[in-house]
């Protein structure tokens, strides 16, 4: 049993099936499904509330998301703990920063990588809030419920990411060092 937990990688089908089973568990116990981006924007709301409480109170979007810690926020905290634990059990892994694939195109500058990651993260969350979910809430949870909105989102992000990845990291991309 313990040796399974220590394995570096689980077969993708096993991990996927267990994620599916986890969705049943969440749905059966709370009537909700797995999602991440709402809790992250709620974190933004909580941080802003500490600095400019009046501004948050007057914002209609933050009124929708709320500023209280709930099941979904605890879920995201759990993701961090679970991933950390899984990584620890597997033992130290050789880490390359920036990632090798990134370095092969954009060089070893960490500052450049962090700036791109920050910008990418900004786009990810802006798009997620516009569409109403992310790869968890729409991609897995919405798709498994056969939602029209979620399949549209899933296929759109895949197409956009394939096109942009080909431009950024594909064989034809220029080595910009």
């Amino acid at each position, binding site marked *: 049993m313990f040796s399974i937990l220590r394995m570096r990688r689980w077969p*993708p089908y096993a991990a996927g099936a267990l994620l599916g089973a986890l969705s049943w568990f969440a749905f059966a116990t709370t009537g909700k499904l797995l999602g991440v981006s709402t809790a992250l924007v709620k974190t933004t709301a909580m*941080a802003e509330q500490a600095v400019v409480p009046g501004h948050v109170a007057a914002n209609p979007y933050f009124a929708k998301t709320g500023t209280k810690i709930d099941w979904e926020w605890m879920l995201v905290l759990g993701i961090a*703990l679970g991933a950390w634990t899984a990584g620890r059990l597997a033992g130290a892994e050789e880490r390359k920063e920036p990632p090798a694939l990134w370095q092969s195109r954009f060089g070893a500058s960490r500052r450049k990588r962090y700036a791109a990651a*920050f*910008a990418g993260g900004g786009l990810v969350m802006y798009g997620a809030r516009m*569409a109403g979910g992310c790869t*968890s809430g729409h991609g897995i949870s919405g798709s498994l*419920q056969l939602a029209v909105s979620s399949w*549209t989102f899933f296929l759109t992000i895949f197409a956009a990411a394939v096109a942009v990845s080909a431009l950024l990291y594909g064989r034809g991309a220029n080595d910009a060092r």
Partner: protein
Amino acid sequence: MVLGLATGFVFGFLLQKSGVAKFETIVSQFLFRDFTMLKVMLTAIIAGGVGVYAIHEFGGKPLVIKQAQMDAVLLGGLIFGTGMALLGYCPGTAVASAAQGNRDALAGLLGMFAGGALFAENFSYFAASLLKRHDLGKPTLPEITGLPAWLFFAALIAVALPLFRRLERRER
């Protein structure tokens, strides 16, 4: 609350063990060099969907469908996909990767907080425009087609199994 933490713990554990909480895995999927992400997601959708629909049908729990504001979903998807190619993580995998000490994922998370703040400022504008366009409500594929849900899962399995078999043969 404890339930959320426990569910999230397993979620994060699975994200790490499956290997999808890595920049290389995600970007390699978009370059069609590594299909781990597709395998994990498709299996999760099929396995999860069959069970969730069973709980819905026999347990009477209502589904939780997101609003199909088509213009916003399409534009949001394009922005999200572009950002994900640049970052190499989605929100869930960024949390998982940052927790393991990857600083680029942490930078991505900070970007997400900023992106969320910016969207909150722009929300009133979108609520009166983009979010109203082509709003289909909250339909599911079975509802708009009149076909039973199990047929969609049967079709997904019929696509996934030969695809997985081919991928495994190719990777060997």
